[in-house]
């Protein structure tokens, strides 16, 4: 499966059970990236995709449920235990500092290989960097 996450400069994801940031252009890019494939999310993330043209699959156990070709958008869930299932990572970097008390728990820089990188402008971020890592 492919895991999609958004990270700050310190690989942070959440603070006080709330996402650090959001950007409409990231959501748009995610939907373009998955190109019609299944997108699985937790109930917390579902509202971000409320405007999507097709339904996302929502479940508390979405990481466990995901198949090999599925995409999982992760915000508030530890992924380390599913590492063996994760063949690809799509990381959106905010290029900003936010408070964080919940971090991405995969050492992607060492355990995966950077495949592509792309900078684009967000609706509320000057520069978002999209990095794709593969095994």
């Amino acid at each position: 499966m492919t895991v999609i996450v958004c990270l700050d400069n310190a690989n942070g994801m959440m603070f006080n059970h709330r996402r650090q940031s959001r950007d409409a252009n990231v959501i748009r890019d995610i939907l373009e990236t998955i190109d019609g494939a299944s997108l699985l999310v937790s109930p917390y993330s579902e509202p971000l995709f409320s405007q999507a043209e097709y339904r996302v699959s929502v479940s508390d156990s979405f990481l466990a449920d995901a198949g090999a070709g599925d995409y999982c958008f992760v915000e508030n869930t530890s992924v380390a235990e599913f590492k063996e299932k994760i063949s690809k990572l799509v990381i959106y970097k905010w290029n900003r500092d936010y408070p964080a008390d919940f971090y991405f728990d995969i050492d992607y820089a060492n355990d995966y290989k950077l495949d592509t990188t792309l900078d684009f402008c967000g609706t509320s971020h000057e520069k978002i960097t999209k990095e794709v890592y593969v095994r």
Partner: protein
Amino acid sequence: MSFFSKKPKSIADFEKEIEKLRQKKKLSARNSERLEEYEKQLSSLKTAEEAEQKKKARQKKIAIGSIAASLALVTCIIIAGCISERGTVEPPEVSPGYTISDFSTGTTTPSDTSVDSSSSSEASAPPATSNATAPAKESNSSFSISEVPAYSGSPYAVINNNIPYFTESDYTTSSYEYYSDLDSLGRCGVCMASIGKDLMPTEERGSIGSVKPTGWRTVKYDNVDGKYLYNRCHLIGYQLSGENANTKNLITGTRYLNIQGMLPFENMVADYVKETGNHILYRSTPIFEGNNLLASGVLLEAYSVEDKGEGICFNVYCYNVQPDISIDYATGDSSFAGAQQTEPPKQTEQPNSPVQNVESTYILNTNTKKFHYPSCSSVKQMSDKNKQTYTGSRDDLISQGYDPCKKCNP
């Protein structure tokens, strides 16, 4: 009789006189001088009038905030069971430059942090997600500096399980901003705002180098990011309220407080407001101990109104410290306290001397947040989109978060 005795006073007078002088076929040296003088004064008058109009517009905006803050005051008084002779809604009496005892004893002010806990818990949203951290404990009713742990490496400490001390009556979906008057020592007090998109700035920030908050020292250390220990630190960040060189909104804060402590929270709030169009109730309170001129830290509280805290909810204390630097909070004096220091601190300004504000022209890279001399080779490689010419002081640029280019070392 000198022509200055008949000098025009109003803009219309000046324009009339200037027109008369311009219509003369040949001007004497004296009239040329007069024309030049009048043109300058007309320009100054117009600038002053524009500034006055902007000020009035802002005061109108603040007045709305004052009413909201006053309502909060009345509520606080009722909740605390305090007897007050002020039964009507009036401009808030703010206790600027709170002392620690103010917080622990619960002095009632519009921005009082000592409120009834039932109000606080009613206002707080349940955690938006369940597995990131341990379940929230019950909230307390008031802030006390004694509950803040000593600084131990993190730029901030969570207060009251991240539940702000706002009361239900504080919440509004109208934007406003409120800044306490300076106290007798010239210190800032609580600043409060309902931050909406309409309050956010639409232009780049101007110079704040003319503001000299209490405890201000211009001193450099090699181990400080950007060298300068102190920044003019916005209590409510410019990116949130667009409030720039307001003396009631600027404290002396370490680089660490500004960049590591407060900025990440401001970023989180700014993004949320921009993306959702919702409002954040935001309060920033500098904590001064006794008569100290330098704040020990800043209490930051924020809560997203429309979604009842689902998007943003925090209550944190940001330490006004700098790793490896020892600070005297009574005066702002400092000294290196780490293991290695290649050179002694460079005190570039005496405490009571005028603000050092030497102006130069620099080229800014708004993307990398570096600034360069115009002749620097990096300027040629810079994208026009990110390039900006700036004339002002180096100190001010650093205060704005810019770092000097390591190549041209401006």
